[in-house]
């Protein structure tokens, strides 16, 4: 991808998040950040450094206490809650460490949940073909054969892939993953990461929070956070980028080259 011509998807300018507590918690301090369309970014940092706080802000699940956040060129900090909900429904996908699958619904129904809330004014895909689209999304993560299962009968890796399929159904512009492999063993981690790599190769913009070096190594770009500050953001043109991309290519050996 030609990075020089890339369009910015996420633009943070001096974003702060202070939690009201005694004393107040400065979870994020003056974060300025840009993520372009089509990027694959890893966010690393010690526990409590503010990674999940960052993801909440990026995902419009939370509002910054100061600073500006443009998403797809739209200034979001002034948006009403319902407009933020519309952006979440239409442009954002989430994958959480805890999966967040509804235990009382089948795999298929869990995936279909992503189409229950649609942005107003957009042509909503017809309800009667929702099942078919869910099946397609499940096929994409290699779980077409588990559609009728309850989540509690799946392995951790399978559950996370269901969550990814659910996020895909909303056709997001940005997929945000918070420790997607945090609850998984090595084999399951590899399967989930392969799925994410494929999605990125198909053009999805990806941001993955992780503790795991192997997970971070798959990203083309890494952002380090410590104590609420971005301390090691390597720009896309950075000197170390080649090495990181080399790692990605290495991991992708034996499959079709990405992009």
């Amino acid at each position: 991808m030609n990075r020089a011509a890339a369009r910015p998807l996420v633009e943070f300018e001096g974003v702060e998040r202070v939690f009201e507590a005694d004393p107040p918690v400065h979870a994020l301090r003056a974060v300025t950040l840009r993520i372009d369309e089509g990027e694959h970014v890893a966010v690393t940092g010690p526990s409590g450094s503010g990674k999940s706080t960052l993801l909440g802000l990026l995902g419009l699940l939370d509002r910054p206490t100061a600073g500006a956040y443009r998403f797809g060129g739209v200034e979001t900090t002034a948006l009403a809650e319902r407009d933020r909900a519309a952006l979440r429904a239409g442009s954002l996908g989430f994958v959480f460490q805890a999966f967040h699958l509804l235990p009382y619904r089948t795999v298929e129904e869990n995936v279909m949940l992503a189409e229950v809330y649609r942005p107003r004014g957009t042509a909503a895909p017809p309800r009667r073909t929702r099942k078919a689209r869910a099946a397609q999304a499940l096929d994409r993560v290699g779980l077409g054969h588990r559609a009728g299962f309850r989540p509690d009968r799946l392995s951790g890796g399978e559950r996370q892939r269901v969550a990814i399929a659910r996020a895909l159904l909303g056709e997001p512009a940005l997929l945000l993953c918070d420790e997607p492999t945090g609850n998984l063993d090595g084999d399951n981690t590899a399967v989930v990461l392969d799925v994410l790599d494929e999605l990125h190769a198909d053009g999805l913009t990806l941001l993955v929070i992780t503790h795991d070096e192997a997970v971070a190594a798959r990203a083309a770009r890494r952002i380090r956070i410590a104590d609420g500050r971005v301390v090691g953001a390597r720009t896309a043109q950075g000197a170390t980028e080649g090495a990181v991309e080399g790692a990605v290519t290495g991991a992708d050996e034996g499959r079709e080259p990405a992009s």
Partner: protein
Amino acid sequence: MKRPASRRGTRMGRADLVDESLSAVLARPWRAALTALGTVLGIATLVVTIGIAATAGDRIVSRFDRLTATAVTVVAADQGLPAGPGEDPLIGWDAADRLGRLNGVAAAVALAEIPPGTAPPVRANAVQDPSSVSARTLGVVAAGTGLPAAVHGRIVAGRFYDAGNVARRDRVAVLGEEAARLLGISRPEDAPAVFVGGEPFTVVGILGDLRREQALAAAVIVPPTAGADRLGIGPVRRVVVDTELGAAALVARQAPLALNPGHTAEMRVIAPPDLQRARGAVEADVDGMFLVLGLLCLVVGAVGIANVTLVGVMQRIGEIGLRRALGASRRHIAGQFLVESAVLGLLGGVVGAAVGVVTVVGVCVARDWTPVLDLALVLAAPAAGVAVGLLAGAYPAWRAARMEPLEALRAA
């Protein structure tokens, strides 16, 4: 890249709302059943209470109806004799016509009889036969032509004498059913005669199935004219009035005035207790107690739904966070929990109504009553259940909607 559209926010289809709520309720069927139990009891109690009260009220009406509730009797004091020489008797034989003009009078008849003890023997034939047992001491009564209607009797054979018989002073008679049996007369069409104190009367009919003035079953009934001519019966002692339902009190007040405005004090009126009040009192008794009980059950049911729904909200914080992340607005979250509790209330209402109806019918079958079930009541029960559910769900739904998405996701 999608941009925010001109119309704002997210939408959730109605089918999706119902789907999401129903699957959440049905995911825990036993919990749903237990949650709805309080509402079931409340609605059932209300349906039974109102149903039984209506049935019992109907029973009371039907028991009073044709007999007591519509019977008014005016009795003349001092045997109805004229106050002085040359004056008219207290009540004339035109009593039926006078009362017939009053509102609420269905039928009326004036009666006079030969005082007991002085009644002449009645025979079925003229021959004095000592071995015959056909001589009977029966009542002898003079009555107007309105008698069958006023006492709810039925002409079992022949006919009742008419105004023509009265005007022509015909010597005809109608026998009470029992009198006819005792005298061995069953075919008035053969024009048999009876002899009252030796005076012959032609029997024209037999009157049976008396619901009032049952003593008349063992009497010989003659027109007032012939009765006065031949047997010296008179003046009028009593007037029996059959009123419309609910008109008894009014008729009782107006009858003496209509009969003899100047001498109302000399008449005694026998009227039933006020029907509407009797019925109202019974319904109020039954209702008051059980309505309170039913409403209490409903409150308990509502608290039960509220409690379980609130616990559900707390257990499903993660789900709430997830739905918000998927684009649900606060309103969608509140709507879902409201519909969930409304479904529980509806369940309670439907089952409660069914239990209530079955109970009412069961009680009625056991008591051999006719169940009186108001369709509106049966249909209102599920609606009441939904109302209870919505009321109970309001606070939990508000709590769920108030949650911040990030906190909800973090808490789970």
